[in-house]
């Protein structure tokens, strides 16, 4: 994986000093809260419902065991012994003191990590496929491109005060595991007819108040123009994105209002101009970065497991993913224990996952946008030992992509923007579907919960989505059906009037039952919904 050189290190070190200085000026009263807020946000520091919250970047979701150990140490030393993995492959801590923030950033910098641009109206952490470099179906490893974009976007002088936040995802397979088309820019690395690699640009997707699926604006950008083209996309947005209304400021609104064609025309014009400005990095830089992402030394070994332990066999079936080397798999560590808090991990669990990565996965871990952790390269013959260790630590729940594998944002338990709590719903739903035994029969069913319209819990993209709303001071929940953030991207639709906290759990079960009674051979929930439409679900829910 990528390792800092003296330049990268000097930049994060300088950032630590800059933030220490800014925090001190805030404490001294030289900066007002209004002035300080965007500065602290660009270092991932929020003021949340209970305290400061710090969001640490995990670039393209990749980290090594030393970094995971450091994240655990931060949870113990500065927080309350746990952290929360987010839908943008980051981790956040809920109980941070402003006085400690500089020290935490220094601890992060010591392991080549940072919190740079994890919030604010700037280009955020670049996300990617959590199986990158391991998946059997990928064209190339997308992470070198993500790393190049990370460097380009870090401290970009022109784009620190965009109309709104800006999220970029990079993938390199036709299977989309990163919700690519629901990003401000989604990039798919592709091959053209001449066999050359390039970048296909999708611009103007997003969730939030007005969810949109990004249109493709250019099918092929040559790799030696990747940064220049990105810069053109951003400049047009910086100049013409709406600034009069926060809710209309994302690039999706600009692309929508101009029309994809006109936006593309403006980008192409800016691009033609910028090509003459010499802003593209030398192509050798991409080559340098790629050397950090070469395959580890895979060795041939067993290709199947001993299935005599049914619990183990179930976990293997559910939580492992096909690897490009047939003696390996990618193993998913579920952070969704039944009745637990989705995405939370204790310091001890983080230390354990780090150790297991070292023992069984070439020292590498990934954060999934579904708030789980991946060990990308596990030898099939090591799977039983790995599973045993995970199971003992409560990390062996076999529920990947099942109804219990719920994405839930922090909601009103932690988030100051929330309308309603998300986590208690996730807890009740996972308990309900384990108790009634339906999780098994339901098969793949992606349930996603957001505590407000900002959609951090990706509810628009859930096969079943839940959105918390405030109904005269009482929590209320809308039910949505039919979303997908995979390559068949679709936006979920609201079923009708909302439900109470217990009512929504019943409603999810009702919707699941409609599927179970109507499904045809091999259909997932989403397939059945797409075939039969909303009506039968509405009928069952509201009769």
């Amino acid at each position, binding site marked *: 994986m990528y390792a800092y050189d003296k330049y990268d290190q000097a*930049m994060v070190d300088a950032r630590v000093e800059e933030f220490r200085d800014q925090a001190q000026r805030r404490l001294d009263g030289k900066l007002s809260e209004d*002035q300080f807020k965007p500065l602290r946000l660009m270092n991932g520091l929020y003021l949340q419902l209970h305290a400061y919250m710090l969001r640490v970047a995990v670039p393209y979701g990749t980290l090594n065991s030393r970094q995971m150990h450091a994240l655990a140490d931060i949870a113990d030393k500065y927080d309350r012994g746990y952290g929360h993995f987010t839908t943008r492959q980051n981790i956040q801590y809920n109980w941070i003191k402003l006085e400690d923030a500089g020290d935490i950033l220094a601890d992060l910098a010591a392991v080549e990590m940072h919190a740079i641009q994890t919030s604010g109206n700037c280009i955020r952490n670049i996300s990617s496929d959590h199986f990158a470099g391991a998946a059997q179906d990928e064209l190339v490893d997308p992470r070198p491109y993500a790393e190049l974009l990370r460097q*380009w976007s870090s401290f970009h002088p*022109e784009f620190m005060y965009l109309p709104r936040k800006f999220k970029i995802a990079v993938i390199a397979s036709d299977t989309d595991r990163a919700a690519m088309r629901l990003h401000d820019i989604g990039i798919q690395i592709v091959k053209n007819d001449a066999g050359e690699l390039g970048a296909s640009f999708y611009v103007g997707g997003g969730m939030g108040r007005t969810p949109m699926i990004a249109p493709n604006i250019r099918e092929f950008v040559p790799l030696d123009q990747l940064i220049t083209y990105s810069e053109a996309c951003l400049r047009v947005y910086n100049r013409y994105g709406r600034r009069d209304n926060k809710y209309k400021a994302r690039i999706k609104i600009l692309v929508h209002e101009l029309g994809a064609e006109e936006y593309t025309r403006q980008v192409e014009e800016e691009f033609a101009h910028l090509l003459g*400005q010499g802003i593209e990095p030398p192509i050798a830089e991409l080559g340098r970065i790629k050397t950090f992402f070469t395959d580890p030394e895979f060795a041939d070994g067993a290709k199947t497991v001993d299935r005599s332990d049914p619990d183990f066999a179930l976990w293997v079936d559910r939580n492992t993913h096909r690897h490009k080397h047939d003696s390996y798999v990618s193993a998913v560590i579920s952070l969704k224990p039944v009745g637990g808090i989705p995405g939370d991990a204790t310091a001890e669990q983080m230390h354990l996952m780090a150790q297991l990565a070292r023992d069984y996965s070439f020292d590498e871990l990934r954060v999934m946008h579904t708030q789980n952790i991946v060990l990308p390269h596990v030898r099939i013959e090591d799977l039983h030992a790995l599973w045993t260790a995970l199971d003992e630590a409560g990390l062996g729940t076999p529920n990947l992509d099942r109804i219990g594998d719920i994405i839930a944002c922090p909601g009103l338990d932690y988030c100051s923007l929330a309308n309603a709590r998300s986590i208690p719903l996730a807890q009740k739903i996972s308990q309900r579907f384990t108790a009634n035994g339906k999780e098994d029969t339901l098969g793949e069913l992606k349930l996603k919960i957001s505590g407000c319209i900002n959609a951090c819990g990706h509810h628009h993209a859930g096969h079943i989505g839940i959105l918390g709303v405030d109904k005269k001071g009482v929590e209320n929940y809308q039910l949505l059906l039919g979303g997908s953030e995979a390559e068949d991207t679709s936006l979920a639709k609201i079923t009708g009037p909302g439900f109470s906290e217990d009512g929504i759990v019943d409603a999810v079960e009702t919707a699941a039952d409609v599927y179970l009674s109507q499904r045809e051979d091999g259909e997932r929930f989403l397939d059945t919904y797409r075939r039969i439409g909303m009506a039968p679900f509405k009928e069952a829910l509201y009769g």
Partner: protein
Amino acid sequence: MVDILRFRDDEAVDHAAVTVDSFVEQTNANAVRIEPSDDARDLIPHLAQIHLVEVNFPVFGDGRGYSAARILREAGYTGEIRAVGDVLVDQIGNMKRCGFDAFEPDAPLDPADVKAALNRWPEVYQESADSRTPIWNLRHE
């Protein structure tokens, strides 16, 4: 009278800047003021006669002025580009990278903070309107 921070040796233009609209009509002006919604490219045909472009920041969070400055520098403009308005010390480093070479903030800046801000970054990642060499070029020299 607010302090003007200037990083140029030439004599400052001593008369008021005009709006982009009146500039285009009033052919003898040599100082013009850009508001966030103005298109800096409207000035490109006239750059030879301009000595000062003021870029107004009514609020520091409106980042359009950064693009305006870079566009002018990319077009070859070498006169003064002055950031005026809600210009704060934590933003001037990036402004300088985008081609600003003078600052006229509403509230005076602490000189020590200015110095710290402008010396903050040992290197830069990207090409911009200043003369600094990006890290990715340093790596492959």
